[in-house]
């Protein structure tokens, strides 16, 4: 039961985190009206994953292992690209919030909203297939014992709950901090997703170097422990990390973070306008 719970929790967190941060961002900037689009993306991903999982479990044909890994890995990398774009898009629109450009920003946000749907769909979808296969297996076992399914669903529920708490928590953070930290958070998460995608492609034999480990801390952080699960679920930290994964993580996170922080630092102080916008946004969020 605990083990299945942990799988549900881990997969749930992996899928939820990006969505939660995007959601908080929309609420903070007073664009609740765009939330349905985010949910639409999530819904599409969940529906497609479950249908696909059922098809692969019960249908006449299954995906080869290499194809499964390649899809997971490929989607992860596309998701990283989109999240990165989102971070900078958020930075840009949030900044112009203060000025008279509000209507223009809204227009822009409206235009980018379809990108939002795609990001949400990918964030959930890249984990979806694997999770759906696991859930169907648990459902099949439900005849003998409903414990595995129960554990898995509970794990997913807790992940959603944690996501909600995080959502509430970040809503309380002061606006300018919020933007800095959501941005940083998304970049770090995206780095993990990228490394994870690379690992999938290594397992599929598409990329080399699966057995050249940069570090292996699985003795200190067992992947089946609750803290191993949390680290994996939130940061996509793999206790046994290959050089290629580590390299991709560093090559992604360091420059992107650098540009992001530099963009923050060099921004001219327009505190009054920001404060107004911040108040407006917070009141809407409340």
């Amino acid at each position, binding site marked *: 039961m605990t083990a*299945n719970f942990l799988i549900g929790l881990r997969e749930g967190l992996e899928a939820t985190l990006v969505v939660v941060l995007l959601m908080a961002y929309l609420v903070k900037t007073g664009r609740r009206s765009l939330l349905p689009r985010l949910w639409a993306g999530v819904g599409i991903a969940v529906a497609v994953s479950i249908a696909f999982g059922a098809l692969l479990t019960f249908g006449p*044909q299954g995906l*080869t292992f290499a*194809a499964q890994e390649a899809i997971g890995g490929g989607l992860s990398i596309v998701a990283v690209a989109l999240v990165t774009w989102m971070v900078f898009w958020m930075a840009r629109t949030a900044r112009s919030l203060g000025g008279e450009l509000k209507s223009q920003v809204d227009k822009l946000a409206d*235009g980018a909203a379809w990108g939002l749907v795609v990001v949400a769909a990918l964030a959930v979808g890249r984990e979806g297939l694997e999770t759906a*296969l696991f859930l169907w297996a648990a459902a099949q076992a439900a005849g003998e*014992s409903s414990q595995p399914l129960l554990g898995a669903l509970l794990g997913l529920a807790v992940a959603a709950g944690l996501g909600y708490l995080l959502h509430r928590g970040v809503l309380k953070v002061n606006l300018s901090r919020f933007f800095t930290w959501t941005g940083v958070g998304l970049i770090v998460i995206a780095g993990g997703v990228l490394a994870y995608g690379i690992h999938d492609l290594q397992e599929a034999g598409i990329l080399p170097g699966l057995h050249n480990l940069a570090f292996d801390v699985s003795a200190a952080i067992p992947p*089946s422990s609750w803290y191993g699960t949390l680290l994996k679920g939130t940061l996509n930290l793999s206790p046994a990390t290959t050089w290629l994964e580590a390299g991709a993580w560093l090559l992604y996170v360091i420059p992107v973070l650098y540009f992001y922080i530099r963009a*923050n630092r060099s921004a001219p102080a327009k505190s009054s306008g920001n404060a107004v916008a911040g108040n407006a946004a917070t009141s809407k969020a409340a």
Partner: protein
Amino acid sequence: MPGTPLPKMTLPKMTSRRRKSLALVAAAAAVPLVLTGCTDNTKTPGSSASAGPIQVTSNKTECKVSIGSVPSGNLSFAVKNEGTEITEFYLLAEDGLRIVGEVENIGPGLTRNLVVTAPAGKYTTACKPGMQGDGIRAALEVTDSGNKTGVDADFQKLVDTGVQQYTAYVRDQTEQLVTGTKAFADAYAAGDATKARELYAATRMHWERIEPVAESFGDLDPKLDAREADLEPGQEWTGWHRAEKDLFPPAGYTALTATERAKIATQLVSDTEELGKRTRTVVLPADKLGNGAKELLDEVARGKVTGEEEIWSHTDLWDFQANVDGARIAFENLKPALAQKDPALATSLDEKFAALQAELKKYAKGDGFAYYNELGPAEVQQLAALVDALGEPLSKLTSAVVL
């Protein structure tokens, strides 16, 4: 960063085209994989399957695989986790490193399936309770069931064999061309016009059979095979047709001097030898065979059936035959592969080649053929019609074999 102003970053506004392309990227990443990455789900023991899925049970200390040796083909594993930790199951190649297939996230009490297509060979199975370490390993032998795993691998082999055979054919024709050209050039340079005329058409057949390959060397082709009518301004006229005009002179033609002939002959031999050298290392993928065959037939339609190629010697039917030979050999080398993909096309090509060859045979005379200027318009038309009839299915050969 307290008090930090809101981030500033100017990224170009995302246009709808870019959004669309992002979605396309996502779709493009997934769709081909879904289409090509399928494998049959081996279902519970039915009519043919003598044994159901291979049962694997994993717990903290054991990884029991129900069988140590299985016939090749689609292997189905049902991996049951009887331990208390999450487990994973891997099918590894003989080196114990390359992953042939894996299932992750097998929670306690769960059974998850793995289906892989495995050719005969030695494998390693591994369960990883707790998802770390090398896992509990065992050897698994996959014996040759005689069933070909995957038609595609087999098909590729047929294509590869065909390509090898054709490459050898090209090499052989080139060697004969080099030898023949030397004999021709000797006779021509020595002023033995009768012998040179005799050798002319027969030697050129080796050239015409491999024309698309020879033409792929853009510098050699004009030096060796340019016709007077096609000369670029300022281009020096050398090669076969230069000698042809001298050997089959039209009225009012001034013959070349002995020195000029010798120069043409030497150049012809050295260019042909260069061609031979380059052909030895030429790489011919399957599409070159298919397209080459079609090109040869186009050559026939463009130059031979019109009598333009050999305007002075009128030996166009030799070239005609040689082009058809080259196209037919390329087709026949690809035929085993084609028969698997598109048997109807293979049959149709067989028939059309035969019909054209039968018609061409009507004009055979001794070792050679009738001269082009001996043919009547109706006869030319009949040949042209058969060339067209063959050209149509032949144009489908490449896509049928390569795609």
